[in-house]
């Protein structure tokens, strides 16, 4: 008799299938695979450079310019945009609220600030890439 609290089992491997919120979260977390891929790609690029062989470097560049890879990079960019950039920028006002007196600075200002910074930093990188 008496107490026997029942613990509902949670699957360690499929828990995120329980609701849409968790699925979207997992899709967000799956960008980590792309991060791994791009890290690997950067290492390859660096080692090619280190090999000091213009032909090898040219090969590497060409390998990234085929239609398959261009489509892949475009899709990866979209994936990052939808599952990292947009949601995180949207959440920025919550993580970094700015309060002036009694009032909170409208969240949209902080979000817009992030997009402006993003465009600016991208422009600087492109400029650097072009200049070099």
């Amino acid at each position: 008799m008496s107490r026997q609290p029942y613990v509902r089992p949670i699957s360690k491997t499929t828990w995120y299938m329980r609701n849409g919120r968790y699925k979207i979260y997992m899709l967000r977390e799956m960008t980590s695979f792309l991060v791994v891929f791009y890290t690997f790609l950067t290492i390859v690029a660096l080692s090619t450079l280190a090999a000091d062989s213009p032909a090898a470097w040219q090969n590497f560049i060409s390998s990234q310019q085929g239609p398959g890879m261009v489509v892949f990079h475009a899709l990866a960019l979209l994936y990052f945009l939808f599952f990292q950039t947009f949601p995180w920028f949207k959440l920025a006002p919550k993580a970094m609220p700015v309060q002036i007196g009694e009032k909170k600075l409208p969240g949209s200002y902080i979000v817009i600030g992030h997009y402006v910074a993003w465009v600016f930093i991208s422009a600087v990188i492109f400029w650097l890439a072009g200049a070099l």
Partner: protein
Amino acid sequence: MEIRQIELEVMRYDPEKDKQPWFQQYTVPCQEDWAILDALNYVKDNLDTTLAYRWSCHMMVCGSCGMMVNGEPSLTCKTFVRDLPGKVRVEPLENFPIERDLVVVLDDVMQKLHKVQPYIIRKDDPPPEGVEYTQSRGALAKFKQLTMCINCMCCYSACPQYGLDNNFIGPAALALAHRYNLDSRDQGKSQRLDILADHDGVWDCSFVGACSEVCPKHVDPAAAIQQMKIDGALEFWKQKLGFPGGES
């Protein structure tokens, strides 16, 4: 007033009889302005007196009646029949052991509320008896939203991190700690940091954000936790670089 027959599917569990939970169906004639809690009360009063659940205020403030309604952690006094077409499934809050029917065991979260030291901690003396602190409206606005938590624990039920590892201090308790950290009358931030920045503290949160989405009082614990991460990181570097401790 219009009456609608609702099929209510309620999870039942009596440890003295059942090996595991099961669902019982009730047909409840609901008035159009009823909340799910009213439907449960109808069952209790008219159909089945053995159904166990917690409730009290019926005005969204005591926090007793948090349950899963159609899979979503909800305050049943604030979840209306009119918004739920079709069958309604009511279960005890997820991520907690079931004591009986819709009643869950809350010991763990009660300890966590205690653990984060949710009270004013002073290093200096407070003003003398009868003399109040001055607190600007702006200073109050900083933490006001975080004082709205009614401890319904819907956020713990929504948090997959807590579900997988209940060592995690979790949303409501962390938000409560942040509430005191942000209070201009408090000086306990660095004392709480040891608990909050510890292994089971803010860094266990992977920002799923579900806690804030289900919070019936718009406390937004997810935001509080992210703010605490920033605070914690700043504090860490301040100490590394030898700045005087950043006390609020």
